[in-house]
């Protein structure tokens, strides 16, 4: 079982894949962009995380989409239905905390 809350890099990976199916470099770039350069996913960390999330059934490997620019056989990843659900749960939980924190900071 993935602990709650999940590790930030896992959350970011799932979030990146929620938009579109990506390969490793795509995930790395998307996470870097979304976190405004704060979260660098180094290769070993990224691919070990992907293995873990795959093992939990939250994402799975797919063939490169038709028309992908790359002629090499890169591995693409897509979010599974449980993965999408788990991302939503996590977001919902984080959202509650953020709301609480905002309330607390405002008073």
């Amino acid at each position, binding site marked *: 079982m993935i602990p709650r809350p999940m590790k930030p890099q896992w959350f970011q990976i799932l979030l990146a894949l929620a938009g579109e199916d990506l390969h*490793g*470099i795509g995930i790395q770039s998307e996470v870097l962009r979304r976190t405004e350069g704060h979260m660098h996913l180094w*290769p070993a960390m990224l*691919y070990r995380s992907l293995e873990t999330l795959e093992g*939990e059934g939250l994402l799975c490997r797919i063939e490169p989409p038709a028309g992908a620019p790359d002629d090499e056989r890169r591995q693409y990843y897509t979010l599974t239905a449980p993965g999408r659900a788990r991302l939503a749960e996590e977001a919902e939980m984080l959202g509650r905390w953020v709301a609480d924190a905002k309330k607390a900071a405002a008073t």
Partner: protein
Amino acid sequence: MTPQLDTGLHVYRGALRLFPRDFRLRNGPDMERLFLHLRAQRERTGTPSRFRFWTRLLVDTLTHALRERWGAPPSPPSRTAHGTRILMSNLATDLRFAARTLVQSPLFTVVAVLTLALGMGANTAIFSVVNSVLLRSLPYPEPDAVVWVDEWQDTRSRSLPVAWPNFSDWREQSRSFTGLTAFNGWTTTVLGADRPLRVRVGGITEDFWKVFPVRPVTGRLTVPADHVEGGPGVVVLREDFWRNELSARPLDEVVLEVAGERLQAIGVVPSALDFPFGAELWRPVFPTSTSRTAHNWRVVGRLAPGVTPEMADQELDAITQAVVADEPADPDFLAEGALVLPLKEQLAGSARRPLLLLLGAAALVLLVACTNLASTLLARGETRQREMAIRASMGADRGRLLRQLLTESLVLAALGGGAGLALAAVLVRTLRSLGTVSLPRLAEISIDPVALAFTAAVVIVTALVFGLLPAFRLSGVDVTPALKAGARGGTLGGGRGVWTALVGSEVALAFVLLVGSGLLVRSFATLLDVDSGVDIEGVVTADVDLSLIKYEEAADHARFYQELEAALVAEPEISHAGVVSAVPLAGVPSGRLDLDGDLSKHTVGGYVLASAGFFDAAGLQLIRGRLFDGRDGPDGAHVVVVSQSFADQAWPGEDPIGRQVSGGGMDAFWQERPFATVIGVVSDVHYRSLAREADPVAYFPPAQRPSRLRFESNMVVRAATGDAAQATAALRRALQRLDPDVPPRFSSMETRLVGSLAERRFTLYLLGAFAGVALLLAFVGIYGVVSYAVARHTREIGIRLALGAQPGAVRKTVLAGAMGMVAVGLVVGVVGAVASTRVLTSLLYGISPTDPVTLVTVTVLLLGAAWVAALLPAQRSTRIDPLDAMRAD
């Protein structure tokens, strides 16, 4: 960017091997792509620095690889794995902390990693070479039982090839062998394949396959019936030859012309077998002489179970002494016994000594590296005692501190190990690509995992011991005084003795290596000054080998070369051309030559056939008399030209012109031995090697004694313009016109000269590189230790400066301290060098192993380097601000 040339990618790929195989198979290629992407990004933006990038990358790889291998599976985290998880998270913390510490002092990290890499890389590479060449098994069953047998002359301390009757007696009488076989081998023209070829052919006799019991890929090996003279000729092929040159045709369709015989192919053996001398074909051969002084054979045997080479040696000694007892005395060439050596030793041959020497040198480099590492880590550890004390007072227990230091040392060792592996890979590849180096079994060399593991273990133990020493010391004392004293540089600084020992040994080891390579450099320079006797510029040789079927008689060969010579001198690109049976620097057949019409009077010298054109083409000087000319045809009176040293040896102080020499047993006249009259004396040539005396040689005209031309013939031409390439082209054209079935091999005299020095150059370069590395490490070591000393005495120096000491005096004190340690090392080094350079004696030429020029030069060089290394921190000490120094307390 081709992946083969991308070192960074190579290193990263090596690091990825830390991951379990299945993980790597699934994700490796994509991780490499991401690596390339990140690196490109880094290069584009310039951040982070290259150093930070690599450190982070390797730490990322290392931590995740460790967790992937040994960590609890990240999910699902079961309760029982809780303890492991704590440990792993501590490990992660330690690793992160270690990485941060190392990144914070990049100079220290770089120096330590480089030190580790150099020590490990050099050792692994050299050991890999030694292992492949000297130690690894040969490609046939029970290789250790195979021995090489030579005749031995005790009174002259030399070994000789074997005479057939001796071999035959050994084979009949000896009980030490399950197989004993005589063989020979040379390169010859082979026709009948897809094109005319020059091929290494092994001439074998019965029992050859008992000594080398290989299983044929197809067909059969030779059987005793094939070794009966006069039977149908047969030949065994090596698999790669069969596939590449014969397109793996069915054997019954393969008939090859080898050395004048048509041979039916009967079998194919695996490509791994290349004995003797890199043979690609094997055919039965038969004895031609029954003389016990005709040393025409090489012998190998397979020892019977339980028999050692020494036992076989004794048995063959006894047999030899018994059978030669009745022979007419001929002390020059009659065997007195036998010499039995393991085949592996024999094959390693002259490469053995330099390789063992280099292995020793690499071990010294490793020692220097370890010493350096020890002093660096010790110094660093002690300057960090305050940090340790603070952390201890904050509640970190001893185990926790030790573990953290251990992690640091391990990360350092892993980084150094990775770099060392990369270096070893590069070195091994470089060694293999040095195609001119005549190392046996060169192509088999690859990185040896045992060597790598061994050097890695040595270096890691050093790193651990010296990295942890301060922590052990710290935990043995009360924390409070360490805290107080810490700022002043510590009470635990270690005696001066420790530092003197460390610096001293580095200096001493570097000294020994520098003297060794200095001696080799000086001998090499001396050797380059030796005159080969040949004016090499623009001289090209072609090793020509005519079909013995097309050119049956020796006289046919002589005629062919005469025509070729005439055709060549007509070419505008060629000024002189001649035929010769032995090429300078490639060896010369030598034997007993009778003198002055008296068969009981003789000398030992080289026997060479040479046309008059050869002397001009090779640039030999005519000192007295004349060269061969039209008078010296087949029907003329026999004549000979001798070299200066031959004349000096045969007739010291007398006029050689008009004296007489026979060809001894060296040509077709070996029975009647007609004498030839000396008509000229020419300058000396080094036929064997530059490092040996010029060979005494008798030159006979091929027109009169052509027999050896059938087997040993080379054209030597001199380019009219000095351009060897043009002469080669003209030579190729002329040969093609006269007989297109001749596959010649060209080589310039210059290439031969360079090639004859290749082995020495190889040793020289490597030893030089080791010495350079040792010097560099010693430099860094001295610099580090003196810097540390200055840092430790900052306060004291500050006070002295405050009390009015001159900066010059302060600098002098620091320098004097450093040079004192260096001096101790130098004294030890001189003693060590004098004691150890003896092993170099056989590799030296023209200088003694205690050559004073080398010793003095190296001493000055080392003193200079040490001075500079110490001067940098000493200079810094004079700029200490007394106020800052006091306040720091």
